[in-house]
């Protein structure tokens, strides 16, 4: 729409936001291409919402620069607001208004052209699957409906960039799946999507992800790149009987970084797969476990994330020790 050809959808340099002495966002830099689905992955309180709020122009940064849709996040916040759709964590609908009344309200607020109003309203109702519930008070809708209606209201004006802050929290799995189908559909039309989540599986749906931890961006890339390039250690998948007890046993082996239950088996993070494959097998057999298989696997995003976080925590601990 208003974005010049070739411009990035979002550019952020050394973005910082402090609340008193607490640093919520710590010198974060990244870019989002137009038409991309960009995921911001991190645990609660990592600074995801703070970042998204700054990008939407509703929170001033303490430092750093950035543009959204080509507009400066500090000086042109109001211009940004005309070119984005934002869906905050709580689906910000008016509960005492009906489905249609909520749509009408936002349609007025976004000044949708008179001749397009009806068409956009029908689109939202279709998209959200609310055909039968036009006149239902929003308070009575289930989570999935509320979520899709909130999305619809936030993008009535067909913005080129959409910011979604944990859009799927508190929504059932089927609605989550349906929601992502919608996101793909929008993305296929060239809309840029910036989404935060703490669900690892959702992160896999994104074109690119940024891992954010304690206000810092600790990794950035496609899900594939993160899994193959960002993790120094190897991951072994062990399938054996009594995995719960086996986990406790494997943890005692020196050199094992981490063990976690994963599906039917265990994931063990080790320095080198080839050496530890045999050590673990031997240990399990010696203690009377039946070993079905031990294989090196491509790590899941969760493995990558956990390993990166642990590396960061260890480094910080070491720094703290030195400072003492």
């Amino acid at each position: 729409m208003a974005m010049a050809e070739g411009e990035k959808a979002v550019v952020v340099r050394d973005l910082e936001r402090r609340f008193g002495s607490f640093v919520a966002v710590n010198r974060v830099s990244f870019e989002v291409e137009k038409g991309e689905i960009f995921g911001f992955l991190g645990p609660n309180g990592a600074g995801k919402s703070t970042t998204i709020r700054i990008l939407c122009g509703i929170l001033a940064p303490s430092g750093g620069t950035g543009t959204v849709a080509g507009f400066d996040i500090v000086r042109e916040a109001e211009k940004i607001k005309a070119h984005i759709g934002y869906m905050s964590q709580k689906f910000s609908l008016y509960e005492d208004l009906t489905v249609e009344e909520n749509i009408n309200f936002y349609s007025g607020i976004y000044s949708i052209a008179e001749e397009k109003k009806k068409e956009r309203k029908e689109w939202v109702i279709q998209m959200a699957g609310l055909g039968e519930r036009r006149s239902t008070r929003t308070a009575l809708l289930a989570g999935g409906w509320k979520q899709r209606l909130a999305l619809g209201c936030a993008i009535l004006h067909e913005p080129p960039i959409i910011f979604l802050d944990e859009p799927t929290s508190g929504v059932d799995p089927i609605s989550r799946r349906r929601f992502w189908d919608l996101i793909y559909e929008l993305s296929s039309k060239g809309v840029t999507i910036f989404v935060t989540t703490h669900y690892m599986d959702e992160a896999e749906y994104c074109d690119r992800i940024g891992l954010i931890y304690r206000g810092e961006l600790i990794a950035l890339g496609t899900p594939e790149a993160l899994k193959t390039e960002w993790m120094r250690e190897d991951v072994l998948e062990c399938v054996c009987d009594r995995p719960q007890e086996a986990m406790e046993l494997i943890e005692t082996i020196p050199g094992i970084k981490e063990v976690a239950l994963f599906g039917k088996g265990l994931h063990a993070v080790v320095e080198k797969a080839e050496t530890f494959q045999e050590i673990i097998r031997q240990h399990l057999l010696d203690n009377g476990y039946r070993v079905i298989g031990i294989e090196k696997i491509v790590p899941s995003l969760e493995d990558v994330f956990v390993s990166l976080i642990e590396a960061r925590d260890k480094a910080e601990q070491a720094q703290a020790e030195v400072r003492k």
Partner: protein
Amino acid sequence: MSPRRIGAMARKEFIHIFRDPRSLGMGIAIPMIMLLLFGYALTLDVDKVPMVIWDQSRSQASREFISHFLGSRYFSLQGYVDKYPEVEKSIDSRRALVSLVIPSDFAGRIASGRKTPVQLIVDGSDSNTATIAGGYAEVIVAAFSQDLLLQEFRRSGGVSPSNPVELRPRVWFNADLESRNYIIPGLIAVIMMVIAALLTSLTVAREWEQGTMEQLISTPVKAPELIIGKLIPYFTIGMFDVFLAVMMGEFLFQVPLRGSVALIFAQAAIFLIGTLSLGMLISIVTKNQLLASQLAMVATFLPAFLLSGFAYPIRSMPPVLQWITYLVPAKYFVILLKGIYLKGVGPRVLLVEGIFLSVFGLVMFVLANLKFKKRLI
């Protein structure tokens, strides 16, 4: 500014109000109940002051004297007593506020033309009523004395002299000195002040609490659009309240309306814009419904009730308080309403008050706009 956005905002706010019986009750029922309660309860008239009489004289002269008291509408006889302890008991128990004691030589003294003292004991614990009752008694006694003098002259064959100076009071604007006539117009001002500020004090804070404000500030809506949109429904309710109050004044309290009804509504509109904006400002600053409503209540009710001059004359306040009253917008609206209602005066006489109200409205509206930030924190 976009009328579309203002319209969308106003329509949404109307729906909130009509779907919530509490806000409708607060907007319409409460002010009417307040007007009824205060209108009937708050009367500053003193009549039918309960009295007991100790007539030690028990003569024809004393009975005639007493009949002057009982004939007036200002006193009502509660009974006769015959000793001081009984007088004391009547006043202690609030059976009587005044007690008249006529000495035993009353008839004799009058017959011989000597000065005749009569005692009036007044309950000073209600000083306002005591002063007024004392005044009434003085007037009655003076009239009685004058009658006696005239009789004396006639008996001695003289020409009855007329008083050299005679006071003929005419009370303008409220000939019967009905306190209701000046309380009701003032009361409308006080009630509108409180209700208007309370109504809007919730509206912005509620959106912050419910999280919908975060969504709103991410849209292109502008501060004045949001504020005007939110003011429109409450302004409508406020004007409807004024209409109901004027109707009640006319038909229920029968307060004479001598001036222009249009002027009342025009001034009410200006007053409402200021007061609604004040409530909005409080809501914007606090972002918390409970705090906002309490603050709105304190900021409007006490000043409007005590310092607006609606019942308690500003002229008898200490100078510092008198100065403070200039900051109480209800004061100007009270003067305006009393002027239009009782004196029937027009805009030329009330220009200063009208200007003050307009300035108040403008300042509040501008402040609300300046304080509303489309940013978190």
